[in-house]
């Protein structure tokens, strides 16, 4: 599958706390925007992939945009863990001849819609019965639990987490499409911010966003005839470690060695490249602490070294590993990580608002701490 498929179109709606249009409408707009970017007619689309949490069905998107006969469709579970897998599934389908033009998308009104954790009636019995009665109500509580342990075991500090928040915010300040475009962040703001779940404060949390994104995947051969410079899917992987329990992954031998490690082994096995070859990364950042954990998992540093890795401007433009160059989930938009995919494509086209000079390799990751996925893209 190496380099067999390419992303040739990306599309998105504006990002905002509140958009008036329905999720379905936003989904259609993002998909059509991506097809237009690719220069491919909607009637040529024969494959779809999205998240199980996506509430617009393929049938709705396909009939609205005027897709042709569809021969492949797939949905990936575990929230933001599925982002990169949507592209991976399309790439695999295209590489194996099951389809020719695939669209992946995510549309979500998490900014103006309900917070899922507020729903008391729809408690998933497993594993909510083991956590929610005790007031571990929200994803932030579950990840804060891992974060405190991570800080305790490895000396990760709030300054390290701030480095992540700051890098994302600085890139958002360069990106007019980002929700935090005109909102700089200072260390003082971070250190005095209100807690959400100690040890995580407001700025350790991603945004709440209305918005939709999509991308178009075709074979590498076909990609040569498209409107834009193709971005090849060099390697892709999903990862669910042995004895993993999902977001509340408290019952394996080492909860701090999560799905990133599993996905990374497969990702690098399928690649001609190593971590040191990566020019720019888009690392899933629903919470700041997921970034240093992911940097360890994907092999940019050793176990427990993720915090120290962020020091000295390493994550900024010109640093060891510039990341989340559109602002990420922390400062551009939180749409279950799909904006990280589109930003990875922009970097390899050379059109990012925070362009890494001559970037030719980009790692994109999905949610860490849940069954996850990753893409290694190259130009």
């Amino acid at each position, binding site marked *: 599958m190496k380099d067999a498929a390419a992303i040739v179109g990306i599309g998105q709606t504006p990002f905002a706390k509140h958009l008036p249009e329905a999720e379905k409408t936003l989904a259609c707009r993002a998909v059509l925007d991506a097809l237009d970017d690719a220069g491919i007619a909607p009637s040529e689309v024969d494959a779809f992939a999205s998240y199980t949490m996506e509430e617009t069905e393929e049938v709705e998107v396909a009939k609205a945009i005027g897709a042709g006969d569809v021969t492949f469709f797939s949905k990936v579970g575990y929230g933001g863990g599925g982002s990169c897998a949507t592209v991976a599934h399309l790439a695999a389908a295209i590489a194996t001849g099951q389809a020719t033009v695939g669209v992946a998308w995510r549309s979500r009104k998490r900014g103006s819609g309900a*917070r899922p954790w*507020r729903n*008391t*009636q729809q*408690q998933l*019995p*497993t*594993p*909510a*019965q*083991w*956590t*929610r*009665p*005790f*007031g*571990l*109500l*929200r994803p932030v*509580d579950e990840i*804060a*639990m*891992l974060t*405190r*342990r991570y800080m*305790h075991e490895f000396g990760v500090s709030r300054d390290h987490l701030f480095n992540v928040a700051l890098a994302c915010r600085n890139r958002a300040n360069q990106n007019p499409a980002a929700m935090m475009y005109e909102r700089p962040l200072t260390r003082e703001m971070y250190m005095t911010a*209100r*807690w*959400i*779940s*100690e*040890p995580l404060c407001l700025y350790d949390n991603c945004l709440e966003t209305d918005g939709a994104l999509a991308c178009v995947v075709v074979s590498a051969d076909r990609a040569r005839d498209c409107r834009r410079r193709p971005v090849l899917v060099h390697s892709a992987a999903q990862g669910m470690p042995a*004895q993993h*329990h999902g977001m*509340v992954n*408290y*019952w*394996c*031998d080492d*909860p701090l060695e999560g799905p990133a490690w599993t996905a990374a082994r497969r990702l690098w096995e399928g690649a001609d490249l190593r971590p040191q070859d990566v020019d720019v990364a888009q690392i899933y950042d629903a919470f700041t602490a997921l970034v240093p954990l992911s940097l360890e998992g994907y092999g940019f540093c050793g176990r427990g070294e993720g915090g120290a890795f962020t020091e000295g401007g390493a994550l900024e433009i010109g640093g060891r590993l510039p990341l989340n160059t559109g602002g990420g989930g922390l400062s551009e938009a939180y749409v279950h990580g799909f904006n990280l995919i589109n930003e990875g494509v922009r970097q390899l086209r050379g059109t990012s608002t925070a362009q890494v000079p001559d970037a030719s390799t980009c790692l994109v990751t999905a949610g860490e701490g849940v069954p996850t996925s990753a893409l290694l893209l190259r130009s």
Partner: protein
Amino acid sequence: MATHPKSTRTSVPAQQTARKDGAPAAGPDASGRTGATASGPQLRTQSDNGLLLPVPDEDGAPFWEYAARGELRVQSCADCGELRFPPRPCCPRCQSFADSWERMSGRGRIWSYVLPHPPLLPAYAEQAPYNAVLVELSEAPGIRLAGNVVAAPDAALDSVDPAKLRIGAPVKAVFHEMAPGTTVPRWLLERP
């Protein structure tokens, strides 16, 4: 991996390996109806003061039945003795479907903890910031039960000064009845 307390299988009630065929009278409905609880056919998900009650599934029901009797028990393989949590249909080590429920000493250590602040559900916001902890059981350090460290079994979620919480601090289990028929383990500091 986890150590297995010897010779405790005989102390476990008779439903240990046949619980899927019938729920004990005092315990949650294990018939497989999603969300059914001890309070009867009406889905009960909150206590009178608005805290969320555990909504057991079929695998988890025995844990809550034993908790209602003031016993902390963990599912174990009846063939190879491996403890497992959360409970599940078969043993990941030997694939046996026979299980037993082993009584734990109730001793453990804090593995990590958080202090949630609003926005929260109203009943939790009232007590925020409170602590939520993960406790590693002495018998099986890989089993980490979520809970709350409190000053007394029926005390509020914020009854212990957060400054007294430390990773590694020894704790012991007590039991608190959240609603009629629904009891949860909670934790007291061994050295308050």
